[in-house]
């Protein structure tokens, strides 16, 4: 019942965010895995289901505009719940960045990471409540503003 990785990839297959949890993969293993999964998922059409079995992961993906959100989970996880989780991530990002786009995530990668950390603890979903997630993030922003 754990999320193994979250990938944000654009239409061209470039990784915009990668977060691995639960088990450690070396840089090479990560790159290879990302390559395989991105190729597999991006080649699928909209009429095909967005759940793919890859190695021992179930990969669930959703597309938002030019960005693909791919989440790898283990066998026991509920696919539909992960779809809802992805949507929740997107909504939270939307609320935080205000009409989120690929560039927001690119240039505020650390914020995006922090946001995910507030939602997940090593692959287990911690919280899905938007204001709960964003409160610490906004606090950090304030600290940053006051320091600069």
């Amino acid at each position: 019942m754990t999320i193994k990785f979250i990938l944000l990839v654009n239409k061209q297959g470039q990784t915009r965010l990668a977060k691995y949890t639960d088990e450690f993969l070396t840089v090479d293993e990560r790159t290879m895995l990302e390559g395989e999964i991105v190729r597999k998922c991006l080649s699928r059409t909209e009429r095909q289901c967005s759940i793919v079995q890859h190695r021992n992961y179930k990969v669930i993906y959703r597309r938002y505009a030019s960005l693909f959100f791919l989440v790898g989970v283990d066998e026991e996880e509920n696919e539909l719940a992960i779809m809802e989780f992805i949507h929740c991530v997107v909504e939270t990002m939307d609320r935080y960045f205000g009409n989120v786009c690929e560039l927001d995530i690119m240039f505020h990668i650390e914020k995006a990471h922090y946001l995910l950390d507030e939602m997940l603890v090593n692959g287990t979903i911690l919280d899905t409540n938007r204001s709960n997630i964003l409160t610490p993030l906004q606090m950090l922003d304030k600290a940053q503003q006051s320091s600069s």
Partner: protein
Amino acid sequence: MGISLFQKSLRDMISGMRSNRNNEEKYIQKSMEDIKKELKSTDMKVKTVALQKLTYLNMLGFDMSWAAFHVVEVMSTPKLLHKVVGYQAAAQSFNEGTDVMLLITNLLKKDLISTNPTERSIGLDCLSNIVTLDLARDLIADVYGLLSSSSAPCRKRSALVLYCCFLKYPDALRPCFKGLVEHLDDHEQSVVCSVVSVLCELVIKHPHNYLEMAPLFYRLLLNSTNNWMTMKLLKIFGALTPLEPRLTKKIVEPLKNIMSSTMAKSLLFDCITTVCSGMTSNEEIVEMALGHLKDFVLDSDPNLKYLGFKALEQFVKHIPETVLRFGNAALMCLSTADPTIRSSALRVISGLVSKKDLKEVIVRVLEHIPSADTAYRNELSEVVLSICCRDKYSLVSDFSWYLNILVELARVPGSVHGKTIAFQITDIACRVEAMRDDAVQAVRSLLIDPFVVEMGKSGSIGEVLKATAWITGEYASFVEHPKETIEALLQPGILKLPCSVQAMYIQAILKVFVHITNDLVCDDDADEASQSEKDGSTWVEGEDDAEEDNGDEELDKLGVVNELSDLILAHVDQYSDTPDPEVVERMSQLKAVLDLQKGMDDIKDVKDLFSKLHGIISEELQPISGKAQKKVPLPEDLQVIDPIMEEFFDEEFDLQQAEEDVEVADNQAASVTSSRGMDAAQALTEATEEQKKFADETAKNQLKQHREKHGVFYLSSDDKQGAGDMGEDDGGEVENVSVQEPPVDVSEDSATKVDALTSYRRKKKKKKKQPTDLVVKQDEDVNEGVDSPVKINKNALDVNPLAPLEDGEELPSVEAYPTSYSNEGDMPTYETSYEPVHSQNTEAPPAEKQKHKSRRRRKHKSRKEKEGAPQEATAAET
């Protein structure tokens, strides 16, 4: 974040990468060099920004393990904004092998007891990602302490981090468990939810340990308003119900309520899987679940469809008869565009098919082959083949039909299942006598089709052609059109097939030819008239002069034979260029037979020759039952344990000496003999019993001769026993197969466990961090049911936190240090006093146990006392 004047910020670097799209690699290389310089800076700001950039590059696939020490530097800065960067970098790049890991224990400890919620949360989060055995052991008390913090976000996070620690340090589970469960009554729903998440993970891994908690979970299920939590609870019940069928009745009502009221498909889907995993005995709830499942399967959304079929696959495994009605829906899905859905549907079909509807289903599956791509075609063929051969063709009632299906499958372009098809055709022809005629007729269409032969060049259809040729030759009596068959067997296209197939073709020609000739010339003893009539009409197409002139009948027969042999001789030379010795040999055999026949003018000689040849090839190959060997009674005087070959092995020992001697003497004859002896010895290990006996005898005789010849070289050997022993072992192993293996010595087994434990202890002292492996070894037998990628973790947590303590078992006293001990003091006492204890399932042998007991001098504690003890200790401490 303040950036020094000349340093590029992360933002600058990212935009730089974007603007240098064409030589991005070069740009990154340049940035990496800058980062390396900047990391050495004494200015913390510069260092932090550099680390931030490095972390970003690491995410894109560049190594940053070399910067581990800099990560620790940034982590230990007092400024929160810098810290966050450091922690993020650590969470991303540290692993069990990172050597600087030892440096961060105190750092994390400081964070965990900090008053700043952000520091606590980044500390906890970092720990959850990089936790190792050492970190878990050193920090679990602090994490556990945070569980009773006043801040709800902190409580819920620490519950989940505790679970991460348990995975690395399973012994902590028992002492922490009670405190964890207490938070199921937390007034903050989100805390309850995360505790349920932890319990869910624990239950899934070892459900039998948590059965007692079912009433608690039931209460939570009734009161849950949070879908995420309900899903976790359903998962818990999904794991518990298979173990405790009475639970099913209990949760039927709440499940029904959820299913009928919820709007969330995800929750609904979890309900369905829960029903499937352990509640299939309750018809009512199954009906309800299947009703919802139908909506999934028929939905136009491919995701729901796919998940519907996946759930259906599970139902098929448990209650195939109840889900029969989905067969049609599955068949309809074979034409969807999504290969994942199709595969799932195929698996459902394969599970649902019955003897009655086999034909219809197979035909409907095969319908999709012409329009499918190669991969899908192969998938479809595979399903058909596996369905039909299941349980020794138990579903197939009409083999004649199935043979034609097999032939049809063989023609599927790009098929990779040639081998299976070939096997099944041969299998059916061998096993089912009545089917041989049909088999020969079915394969005929493959044999005479030049297009199929052309296809055989590549892919696996060559195997099918081989089987085809074999069947035609072996069952030549059913060949209806001999001339056509022989022509087909002589097609020039065959030269392009693999050599083994060619050899089979030549053999088939010989068999068919011998058979025809024999039938022609030898059958006149019995019902000559009718036979010859049949002969005339069927064997030689369009040539019925045999019938017209009875006086020249014999000559005519010879004529027919000659015609056939001319035909063969004219074409058989095409094989003469083949490099394969097998093909060449068979070709020359065939030619020799034909030449022999050519040279004979007298029909009597021909008759003579061919009746003999026919005798050779017509002996039928009988299928042998796999259990045949068992039916042969064991002779009473059969000795399988005593060395039967003592003498031989003894002599073999001498033989080696002899060999050496022989080498010196350079006696060629002797060396031949002895090497033969060695061959026999080698064959002994591989051959069947009979062959072995034969080989033994030959070897013995040879040795005898050898001894007689070279008696001078032999010394009387005292080493009989040693050599004999070795031989006995070898022989015994082969023969003893049916003899039951002696039971594994239990005490020895547990002794190894204890060994593992002691080595574990030793390892621990040396700060090695792989206890999980050892734990797996101990508990291997406990949970072998489900295979999963997290197997190590799965076994690691098989500690029953609910069970009373065993006599002599001691808990690592985590609870004695719940919230407050200063981080700059000594190591906590629980660490020094800690000794790995035997978990419930690993019992040491009595002697060992005694030792442990006396060493630890523990009193027997009742469960009550155990539960009371930590609190007392806490009180004493504070």
